[in-house]
């Protein structure tokens, strides 16, 4: 037998052991733990959602969406004010937070000199801001409204300021990541043609980063839409009986309405609250779906 065949056989033997280290007992136990943890999270979430859907199912009707909240007829109470209020809040939150967030992120990524202490300080602060409890942003918004000279901060403006401040760090962080993902070569190509840094940022970097920015913004918004705490602090009403008309009209928001209904003892209010939670979930799912759609549609491989 030639040397080559002998070696080949030895190699085959050492490879075909019939056992695999991937399936040792320790590995299996660890894998089991991972599965258990995952199932635990998913199952709890599913039970919660299904329970809420079952409880609210008797109220999945038109009145839920079109009626104002009513204390006298709990069986037909609706969330028109809350849904419209939340929609207005989202629009103005985005209008405030997106330009500010993008500008801040572009400054930090493209213009700031990282050797300067103040830029490092800003960066450090930004990471901490993302971890600040949402209620603090409510207080901040009240202060801002007072500075602007408004007595009543429980308005579209006050609520949108609170939520915009809340999601600003998220938008800045995701925008920076999207901007950083644009390859250096694209910028160099533009600059080498005689474009300024400003032109390069505006015409190359920013357009290429838009899918990432949009996803980040929408995810931020879907967090903001479920927030009640900062809105309570700002002083949004638990219930109003008119549609929002402008920046300064008093409004309520869906999470606020849900919050105020769950403290009522009547069964019908509890049912309505569950149905409203489902509405809120659908809105959040819609936003997340939009984010996924944008990401897939505009995804770019370099």
């Amino acid at each position, binding site marked *: 037998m030639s040397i080559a065949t002998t070696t080949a056989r030895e190699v085959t033997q050492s490879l075909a052991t019939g056992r695999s280290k991937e399936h040792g007992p320790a590995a299996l136990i660890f894998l089991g733990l991972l599965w258990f943890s995952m199932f635990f999270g998913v199952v709890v979430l599913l039970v919660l959602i299904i329970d809420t859907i079952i409880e609210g199912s008797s109220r999945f009707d038109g009145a839920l969406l079109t009626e104002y909240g009513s204390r006298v007829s709990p069986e037909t109470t609706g969330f028109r004010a809350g849904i419209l209020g939340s929609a207005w809040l989202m629009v103005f939150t985005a209008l405030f937070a997106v330009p500010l967030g993008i500008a801040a992120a572009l400054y930090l990524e493209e213009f700031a000199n990282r050797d300067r202490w103040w830029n490092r300080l800003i960066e450090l602060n930004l990471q901490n801001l993302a971890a600040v409890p949402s209620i603090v942003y409510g207080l901040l918004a009240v202060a801002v409204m007072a500075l602007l000279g408004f007595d009543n901060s429980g308005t579209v403006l006050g609520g949108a300021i609170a939520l915009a401040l809340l999601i600003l760090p998220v938008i800045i962080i995701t925008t920076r990541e999207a901007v950083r993902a644009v390859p250096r070569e694209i910028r160099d190509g*533009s600059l080498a043609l005689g474009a300024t840094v400003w032109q390069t940022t505006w015409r190359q970097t920013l357009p290429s980063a838009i899918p990432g920015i949009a996803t980040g913004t929408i995810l931020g918004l879907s967090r903001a839409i479920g927030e009640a705490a900062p809105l309570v602090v700002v002083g949004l009403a638990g219930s109003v009986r008119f549609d929002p008309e402008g920046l300064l009209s008093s409004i309520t928001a869906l999470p606020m309405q849900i919050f105020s209904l769950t403290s009522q003892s009547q069964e019908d209010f509890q049912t309505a609250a569950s149905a409203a939670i489902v509405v809120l979930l659908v809105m959040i799912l819609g936003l997340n779906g939009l984010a996924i759609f944008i990401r897939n549609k505009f995804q770019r491989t370099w």
Partner: protein
Amino acid sequence: MPANAAYANSRTPAGHVPDPLVDAHDGESRGLPDMPPDPVMEAFGLNVYYGDFHAVHDVNLSFGRHEITALIGPSGCGKSTVLRCLNRMNDLVTGARVEGEVTYHGQNMYARNVDPIAVRTHIGMVFQKPNPFPKSIYDNIAYGPKVTGMKVENMDDLVEGALRGAALWDEVKDKLKQSAYGLSGGQQQRLCIARTIATKPDVILMDEPCSALDPIATARVEDLMHELRSDYTIIIVTHNMQQAARVSDRTAFFTARADETTGNRTGLLVEFDRTSQMFSAPRDKRTEDYISGRFG
């Protein structure tokens, strides 16, 4: 005196204090290297630092009009660094510092009142990896003239002219509105060349423009360089010695020397001469070792 400045790098004239970074390998008088008669760009005493790191030491070079100059040498010897100094792309690298002069038609480009943006419109650059913009082929070409505020009477003509100039027109004329990312690597690189000539530069810098291309695409780019030579001055960095020999009129050979105390490798120019001379009878032992593959 510019013509002899480059030469001073490889020789130690009488009375001159020997430079510790340049060893006196040569000394035989084989006559002066032949300098470009009509230099468009020249570098005098060019030193580049990245922070504390001395990347390039005292380079003197001159680049002749309508000539192709190749910069060759082992990896890390500072070829790209020198090239980036020629259109002030090094300004964009944080921590990079340039000493010495780079002149363009006699004007020092590192003078205080010079706008680096304006410099780059005269001295274009093509990169190692084809880097088309994520736009249509047409917009890739139109981008430069737009951002630099060039007066363009008919953008369609300009785009066609640039694409013809880069020998790409016939391949893309039916899909100008399609994404540049749909082109092959070689086509993308020629698109980048077309994009550069669309802004009507005087000098084109190329940093290993063919290293990401296959031999056929490489040959096309090399042919293109020969065609472009009649209108532009080209400076090309290449790792491929045959390519330098094939395309260039003059060659500058760089090498890196380790500092005795810190061990940092500083690049320096060893020899600059006509390519034919350099490849047939190099004056310096290090050049000879490098081009004959005995470098180590």
